[in-house]
Structure formats: C-alpha cells, structure tokens
C-alpha cells in the first residue's frame, strides 16, 4: 500500500503523475473520489483527486501541481518509495447515469481529475465532449488520454498555440450553442474557470456541477476546514462534495478561503527550498 509504481513528469517542475499501489482504494475508487495522504511523520494531510483507478492491477493514478511544501516533497519521491499514509476513496462519487451528452470542462491540473469523471461517463454510455484549456500547448495535460474516452476533445490555449485562442469557457459556450442535446456540464479546474463555467452554462438550463478544492485537514467530515457556501448554506466539501451545483456556489468566498494559510504555506515552502526542512 502506498508504493509508487510509476512516476511520469507531465510538465517539468510543475505537474507530475504518479501511479501508486493501493489495491483497496483502487477496488472502490469511483470518479469524483479523492485520497488524503501524509508523506512523513511530521507531515500534513493533503487531498488529491484520483485521476484514474485500475482495480485489477490494484493501482490508482494521482496528478499533482507542485504548489507547496508537501507537493514539492512528494515530487522528490521516486519509483519504489512508499507514501506513509494513504486514505481513501473519500468524498461522494460523481453521480453518473446514462443520459446522453455530457460536457466535461477542465482547466490546468483539473484536467487530470476531470479524466476520471469523463471516463466514468464514457463507460456509462454517454457521449463525452471534453473541453480543456491551458495557458499554452506545452501546459495542456491529458489530451491523448481524454481522446481515448471522449467522442470529441475541444481545446483552447491562452496563447493560441493549440486550438481556440482564448478561454476554455468560450469553447464551451460555442459548443452549447451548437449542440442542444447536452444534458450535463461538469467543470474541474481553477476557481475562476469554474465560476466562469457556472456563468456560461446557466442560461442553457443544464445541470452543471463543479468540483471544489477547498482546504482540508482530516478529509473525513470532522473538522469543517473545507466548508463552502452553497446556496447560502454551509456545506462540507469532503463529505457532502466535492461536487456541487455550480450556480449555487459562492466562488468568491472559496477563493478567499483558499488564501487562509498563504503566509504559512510560503514560509514552509521557503524553508524547504533552503533545505532547512525535510
């Protein structure tokens, strides 16, 4: 349990994919689920979405953006190393039913998390239209993987190096205009992107979900760190989410709360980079 089987750099010094031995998690993992991990005895617990699971091999795939001390430390680990604590699958899985066309919208590292959801929809017999975006072609993740499980993959880049030049939500809007059969939109990515997905999809009256990435400690419904405001009520992303109805989410508050420990996160990262912390 927890052994790193394969490590693949997706974007150098930015995003890495790991295949991890976790038979019990792989056997149960459903799209939308996440794991919580702790790397060492003094480590923090961080949630990471399960990007893929292979129950037969007993392996799960995680993809992380190196954004703080713990992900930086994770990135120093090699194939064969063991993740100290790995707990999951956590969170409510995406509710997937056969319903027709589903638009899966992903941005940045969120595309990896989106992959598992798109795959689940594909396997359920839905028409999957994946709409993905990044700053540039080199930073676009999981396009080949998504092509295998999507009927169509639409791409946007900020610099126009691949696909539409501009925002991923512009591509979504254009698609929603031309295909009235879309039954559901799912957005996973940076908060501004998800807010934009909510806004773009609203006029079409389509069920629209977003997967929220709030700060967690235990990840099992005990601490309330991950609380988000959905429809004016406090909801807990770890056990009631991470997916919520997009139009109901207070994205401004989510953005604000993600900054809660910014100064400590910075301090920890700087000490790690100076090799004063392991």
């Amino acid at each position, binding site marked *: 349990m927890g052994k790193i089987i394969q490590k693949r750099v997706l974007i150098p010094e930015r995003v890495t994919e790991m295949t991890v031995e976790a038979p*019990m*998690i792989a056997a*149960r993992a459903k799209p939308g689920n996440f794991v919580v991990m*702790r790397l060492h005895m*003094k*480590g*923090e*617990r961080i949630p990471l979405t399960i990007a893929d699971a292979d129950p037969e091999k007993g392996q799960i795939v995680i993809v992380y953006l190196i954004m703080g*001390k*713990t992900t930086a430390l994770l990135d120093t680990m090699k194939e064969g190393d063991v993740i*100290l*604590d*790995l*707990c*999951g*699958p*956590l969170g*409510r899985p995406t509710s997937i039913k056969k319903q027709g066309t589903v638009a899966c919208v992903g941005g940045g590292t969120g595309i990896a998390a989106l992959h598992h959801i798109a795959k689940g929809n594909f396997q359920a017999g839905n028409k999957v239209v994946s709409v993905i975006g990044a700053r540039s072609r080199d930073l676009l993740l999981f396009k080949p993987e998504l092509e295998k499980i999507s009927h169509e993959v639409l791409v946007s880049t900020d610099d126009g190096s691949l696909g539409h030049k501009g925002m991923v939500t512009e591509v979504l809007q254009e698609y929603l205009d031309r295909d009235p059969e879309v039954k559901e939109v799912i957005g996973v990515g940076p908060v501004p992107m998800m807010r934009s997905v909510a806004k773009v999809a609203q006029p079409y009256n389509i069920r629209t979900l977003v997967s929220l990435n709030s700060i967690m*400690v*235990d990840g*099992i*419904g*005990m*601490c*309330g*760190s991950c*609380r988000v*405001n959905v429809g004016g*009520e*406090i909801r*807990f992303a770890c*056990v*009631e989410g991470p997916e919520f109805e997009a139009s109901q989410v207070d994205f401004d*508050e989510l953005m*604000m*709360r993600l*900054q*809660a*420990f910014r100064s*400590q*996160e910075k*301090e*920890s990262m700087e*000490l790690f980079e100076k090799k004063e*912390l392991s």
Partner: protein
Amino acid sequence: MPEKAKKKIRPRVSMPMLDAVERGGMFSEVALGYSLEQAVAEAGRCLQCKKPTCIKGCPVDVDCKSFIRLLGRKDLEGAFAKIKETNSLPAICGRVCPQENQCEKTCKLRPTGQPIAIGRLERFVADNYYAHTSCEEETGAEACVPVDENLRVAAIGSGPSSLTLAGYLAANGVKVSVFEALHSPGGVLLYGIPEFRLPKSVVQREIDSLKNLQVDFLCNYVGGKSVTLPELFQQGYKAVFLGVGAGLPRFMNLPGENLIGIYSANEYLTRVNLMFGYKFPEYDTPVPPGRNVVVIGGGNVAMDSARTALRLGAKRVRVVYRRTKGEMPARQEELEHALEEGIELEILSSPLSFHGDDQGVLNKMVLQRMELGRPDESGRRKPVPIEGDTFTLDTDLVIMAVGTGANMVLTQTTPELELNERGYVWADPETGETSMNMVFAGGDIVTGAATVVEAMGAGRRSARAILQRLKG
C-alpha cells in the same frame, strides 16, 4: 449528615499543579498527580462503606471501594487489577472523567463537600502501575486468556468506546481489530483533548497495552468507505462495533462565519493535537495565529480551545457563553483551570455577525446581550436576547465550540442503519445493538457529543452483549 460528624472529616488531599502563570506558555500537563504518600493519605479518608454508593456513579462500574482499600494498603498491583476488571483505560478516566458528577457525586462523603478524590486515586494507581510495569509483565501468561483467532470482532473508530470494547473482549479471548480513519489511533483522545489535560503518551500507553492483548490497530481505514460492514462479515468478523464518534462541527449560520480566522474547535484542536501544528514549521500543518481570541461555547471543548489558544501566544482569550457561569456544561475543574490561567468569560452573550477586512480576514464581531428567561426542556433557564443591546469585540481568531452533528460518512454508505430522531445511529440502550444484526454502536455516534466515560460505558455494554452472543 449531622453537624458533629462533618467536623471530623479531614479535607481532600489537594492536587499538585503546575503554576497557573508558568503553564500559560506550555503544553505540559497541568495536574501533576499525587505522590504515593498523598494517595495513601487520601485513600485513608475512605469510609469503606458497607453499602458503597460510589460504584453506582460510575458508567463503567469501577469498584471504587475495593481499589481504594487496596491502595490504602499500598497494594498497587491489586488496586490496578481491581480497576482493570471493568475499566480498560484507567489513566485516561482518572484525568478526563467528570468525577464530580459520577463516583464522587455518589460518594457518601459528598454532603460534607469533601468526597474522596476517586478520580485522582484512579489516575495515581494507573500511572504508577504503568511506570513500574513493563508491557511483558502486564500480559504475563497467567493473566492472559488465549485469544481465539477465529473469534473475531471489528471495531470501527479507535476512540474511547472502541478501546474499551477491545479491552473487554480481548481479555476474554476475542480477537479484535480496530479500524481507524486517521493516521494514528485514539480518536478524540488524540485529536480532541489537548496534551496539557491528557498527555499523548498516556493514550499511547493504553493503546500499547491493548496491542499486548493482541488487539490489532489498522489506520487509514474509513468505516463505510474503505471498509464496509458486509465486507467485514464476509472476511469472517462475527460482530462489528461502530464507535465512529461525532461528526461535522456545528456552525451558527451567521453573517461572516466563513471569514478567514473563524475555525471550528474540531479543526483548531485537530491542527494542534493530531497534527502538532504548535510545532510549525517543523511540522507541516499550520495553526491559525490569534492574539485576541474569542471562543464561542461553554463546554469542555470550549475550555480546551481557549486554554490551547492561550498557550499558543494569545494575549487575550474570551469565552462567550449565552447563559451564565453556573449553567456552563464544562467540568468545574476545567473551568477553574481556565480562569486561573487568565481566560475571561463573556457570559449572557451570543454572536450575531462577524466582520473582516477586504482580504476576508476577521477583525471584529458583533454580539447580542442575553438574559435568562424561563427554564427550557433541558431544565436550564433559556437565554433570551435583550432587544437592542448589542456590543462589538475586536478579534482576530474565533473558535466555534458549539457542538457537533452526526457523522454522515458511515450512514451515507450504510442505509440499512436505522437512525434515531436526532440523526444519530439508533442502538438498543441495553446492548448497543443497531437495526443490523450483530452490528453494535456506542459513544457519540449514538448519543451525540457526550463524555469519554459515557462512550466507554457504551463500549463496555456492547462488549458484554457481544461476548454473550459469541460465547453463550
């Protein structure tokens, strides 16, 4: 008791304490514990009643009279064995039980105001025994009932109810596996109760002693998620005990409640206790800083949060409670310790709203002044707002200690479990059996937030029922 007799009663031997000023900056345990002389002197005050009433006050049936008699004779091993007959976690109970409402309340000396300090004596016996006994001795061949590997019981959650159940069953030859969702066992004893009240080494010691009885602890298993009830029965477990504890923290749904700087007590204490956030950055998990701290609530969790904040460098800590000091549900001793340390009370007040800067960082809160009206269902006088009487407090850290709701992870994934009207798991009050055959439950998942020893009592009742069903 007649006046004359009252005068003869020697007062309780007082507990050695860390100095209130000194301890403000440290996490060391506050109550230091009796010496042997002090313990024997206190035990000597016991009347050794023909018909003892102390035992009736104990949720786990500790034979207080007998262990105190043995202690009085300096037979510490005998005293420990007597306590262990019914209590798997004596070092913990001796520290965190509200004895004033239990054994010491039913002690015949209570009317004198000087009941026997049963809790302190229990703690002394347990600490002394552990300090002088190696683990091997503790499980010497004589004491051990051989564990039957085929007679297996699973406990989900590793807090006080599961630990008690495990101790009882293991001592009776049942193989117990304890599944814990977090990365270390102990449940609320670990993440909730701070070091200065219950040192983590004490919890570890009790867990190690269970391991010596061949109890297995499996961490990172979430009941209902990574391990489901039907699977456990398929794997050969004959019974399952659910001791998963309380769940989501309650908030008050007030404006500004999600600002940066407002935390549930669960989160604040978990960051400090389980994750060692007070040692940040050596440990990775940060703790929110607070110089001017307000804790909302009047229970033990509120006291623990307030005293923790003080130790983490707060200049001022206020506990806001909507009733008065007399109605506070916190243990009297905890409240006294908190006040000694300089925690201030803001009684008859209730928060109305929270306010922050343009970054969403909390800087003040508005409160409503209350007064006590007629008694409510709980028998306590109900606090009612005094119209128009509000006030503002400057604060950079608010800790909400207003209770917890039911844990939804298990119930979400196990719809067969019948719930009671409050949303907790329904269990037979005598046996703890739930609506599912051979599935038992106890502790906060059944009762809602309660005390450590009540959870232990439930664990013990279920263990007894399970043993009867397994062995007839």
